[in-house]
């Protein structure tokens, strides 16, 4: 009888390190107007933000839980702490960050990555940033990279007010409303016209407190003809209570601007990752999403690109690896609403050990988007029959003058490919491992190589042996 291959889970020991819960301040569990008021007061919000939070809470209370995705039965807002402030202020030097927290980020490889290959780093621990720094030469280019709280009251406060949750509004869905009510932390980036940031900026989000939620807000504006690569990473240790991540990312790419937004998501397997990401792209601009989803117990994650200006482009490259106890519902949404826009979606998903992976997408081409092109390619690999892999791609085309293509494949490893490799002297075990690695590499090669130690650890899927 043919042996069954074992494909290792990702080695999570680095991410599972826990620090004792020694936060300086935490709110009680649950979600009430009083809690929202307390968050607003603690963060010294301007009045408009306080009002915004309370309105978002009302919307949250009116909206229903999604009825189309993975079950959220294990998530109770009554048991989630929405704000946990770590025992430090935001620092501009790692040496000033409390040792325990600094050690955590050291082990995740963040300071090392900053030294070697990043233009700036923001590190969030629970609800607040504990470290933020940007290279002087980048600052001298006029690039603003700061924490959201500083941006909200600083020189760029008007710009923040003009853009904050205008792209993802609290009415989008229940967890966008939740975000609007309790958001904390995150980054604000502004790249002035014509400025090209040659090396990436990075934000890393670490959730240490058990039973807590993280609700960081990322707002990036890449002005006309400017370009930026922004990297986002996240992780948490595993607890036996549910944690929640309901972040929000809003990206504005102005005329002929270019933004690459890369994410390696590696939350622990008790995490409900209900994140919302959206980009709007003006004429001639480009948004590129590179997305790796490896962690979480349940994920709802579909970065959306709105191609608003003529000739705007979007590219989405994603990989999802669903293992035991995971139900990862991921994909992307693209709206073509201007002429000559183009998009390409290329995803891979792997399911094993009872994991459930769903690729969900939508491509909407409006009547105005004449001469637009869209292509979607999704491939799924099942490594056993106790897992699931579903693809649910939707297309809504409202002009005749568009060119739309879609293809999807699902299956196991090809026997012919194994035979071919074996005929070249490679062992069966090695051949199958090569094929699985190759399947993932097709997407992972798009991920930024400079993305700290963590990314390599995740991409190295340690596939060994033959696949059944």
């Amino acid at each position, binding site marked *: 009888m043919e042996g069954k291959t074992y494909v290792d889970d990702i080695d999570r020991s680095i991410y599972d390190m826990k620090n004792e819960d020694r936060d300086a301040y935490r709110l009680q569990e649950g979600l009430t107007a009083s809690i929202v008021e307390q968050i607003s007061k603690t963060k010294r919000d301007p009045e408009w933000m306080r009002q915004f939070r309370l309105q978002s809470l009302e919307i949250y209370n009116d909206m229903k839980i999604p*009825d*189309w995705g993975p079950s959220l039965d294990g998530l109770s807002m009554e048991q989630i702490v929405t704000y946990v402030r770590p025992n430090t202020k935001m620092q501009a030097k790692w040496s000033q960050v409390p040792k325990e927290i600094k050690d955590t980020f050291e082990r995740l490889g963040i300071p090392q990555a900053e030294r070697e290959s990043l233009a700036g780093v923001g590190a969030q621990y629970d609800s607040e940033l504990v470290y933020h720094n940007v290279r002087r030469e980048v600052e001298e280019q006029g690039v603003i990279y700061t924490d959201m709280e500083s941006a909200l009251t600083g020189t760029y406060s008007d710009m923040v007010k003009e853009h904050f949750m205008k792209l993802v509004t609290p009415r989008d869905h229940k967890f966008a409303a939740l975000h609007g009510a309790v958001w904390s932390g995150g980054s604000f980036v502004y790249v002035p016209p014509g400025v090209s940031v040659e090396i990436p900026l990075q934000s890393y989000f670490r959730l240490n407190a058990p039973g807590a939620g993280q609700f960081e807000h990322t707002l990036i504006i890449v002005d006309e003809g400017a370009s930026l690569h922004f990297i986002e990473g996240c992780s948490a240790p595993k607890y036996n209570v549910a944690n929640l991540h309901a972040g929000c990312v809003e990206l504005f790419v102005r005329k002929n601007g270019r933004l690459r937004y890369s994410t390696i998501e590696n939350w622990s397997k008790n995490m409900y990752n209900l994140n919302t990401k959206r980009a709007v792209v003006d004429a001639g601009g480009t948004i590129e999403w590179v997305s790796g989803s490896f962690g979480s117990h349940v994920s709802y994650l579909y970065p959306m690109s709105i191609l608003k200006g003529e000739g705007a482009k979007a590219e989405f490259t994603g990989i999802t690896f669903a293992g035991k106890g995971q139900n990862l519902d991921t994909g992307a949404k693209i709206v073509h609403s201007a002429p000559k826009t183009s998009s390409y979606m290329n995803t891979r998903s792997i399911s094993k050990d009872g994991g459930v992976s*769903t690729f*969900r997408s*939508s491509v909407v081409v409006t*009547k105005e988007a004449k001469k637009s092109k869209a292509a979607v390619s999704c491939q*799924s690999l*099942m*490594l*056993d*029959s*106790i*897992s*699931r*892999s*579903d*693809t*649910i*791609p*939707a*297309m*809504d*085309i*409202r*002009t*005749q*003058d*568009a*060119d*739309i*293509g*879609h*293809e*999807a*494949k*699902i*299956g*196991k490893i090809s026997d012919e490919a194994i035979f071919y490799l074996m005929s070249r002297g490679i062992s069966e075990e090695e051949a199958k491992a090569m094929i699985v690695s190759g399947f993932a590499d097709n997407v992972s090669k798009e991920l930024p190589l400079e993305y700290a130690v963590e990314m390599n650890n995740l991409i190295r899927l340690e596939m060994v042996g033959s696949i*059944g």
Partner: protein
Amino acid sequence: MEQGYQMTINRLPAPTWNWLHMNESSVTDIKPENRDAFFFAELPKGVIYNQDKRQLNTIVSGMGKDMDRLLDTANVSAQQFVIGEGENVEEPLQLHLSYGDNANGIHAVELIAMENSRSTIVMDYTSKARMGVGAVSTKIHVKRNASVQLIQVQLLGEEFVHLNDVGVWCEKGGSMEVIQLFLGARETYSGWRSDLFEDESNMTVKVGYLGRDQQKIDMNYVAEHSGRKTKSYIRANGILKDEARKLFRGTIDFKTGCIGAEGEETEDVLLLGEDVVNQTIPLILCGEEQVQGNHGATIGKLDEEVLFYLCSRGMTKEAAINQVAMARLEALNHEIPSGKVQDLVQNYLKGVFDNEME
């Protein structure tokens, strides 16, 4: 008088975002009654006919439970056809559904293809009037190694509402082959579901549609693989003109244990109007490792090179476009094993495209 009926039909087996409005469809104002709707059968040798209480209620259809509920409420009995064991019925069984002015027809057809039998059913839907409602449920039980070919051609008047629902259950080695052409009616709802329940059963569905004016075509096709080495192939090929709207849902569902199953689904849509709406959602649901599933879709206007070639041969742009559109549908029409029905379709298409040329 009976009140209009509210139905929710053509549900996606796995729902998606509600804002896309693709998860299901609602139909209102279907009357649970029969009026001016006529059913004729031309029985070839080897087919046993009976009209009786519906028997194949356990077979699930593409439209879902609300269609069964409509049949129950309208107290519709089944037109039952049985193909005897080992029978090779050479002539097609022809079923004609014909509708009068302002007709409201609700019919149920049941076919049991006994072991090792071979048969072909050709169903055509025609109307003398522009307006009416025709709802037809067809349930088919394909027994061991039986082979059934089903042809359905809809040429209804331009204000008709047409519901065409099919459910198929395949036993070991059973084979179901289908050709459907939807060319008329203001609103067409088509549900299809094949349960490839036992090993080595297979199904092929080829659908052709033409949407024009303000026509709406709403489809839900599901191939559920439970048996080992089962095969499914769904191909939809359509043309949308003017302000036509179309929603095609296609699902290949691999259940755990369907080792060696293969499923393929393709859709090719030619868009020929500034105001058309084309919605497509092709699903693959998979709970089994050892399967192969593919789907592909191409949606767009007529290739410029083809158009240029035809125009360079002296055709006007409109004539060239119509020629290509007609050829697509005629390719499927030629596969219909009934000269009479082929002629019917050809004349219908000619009428449509000639009118546009005038």
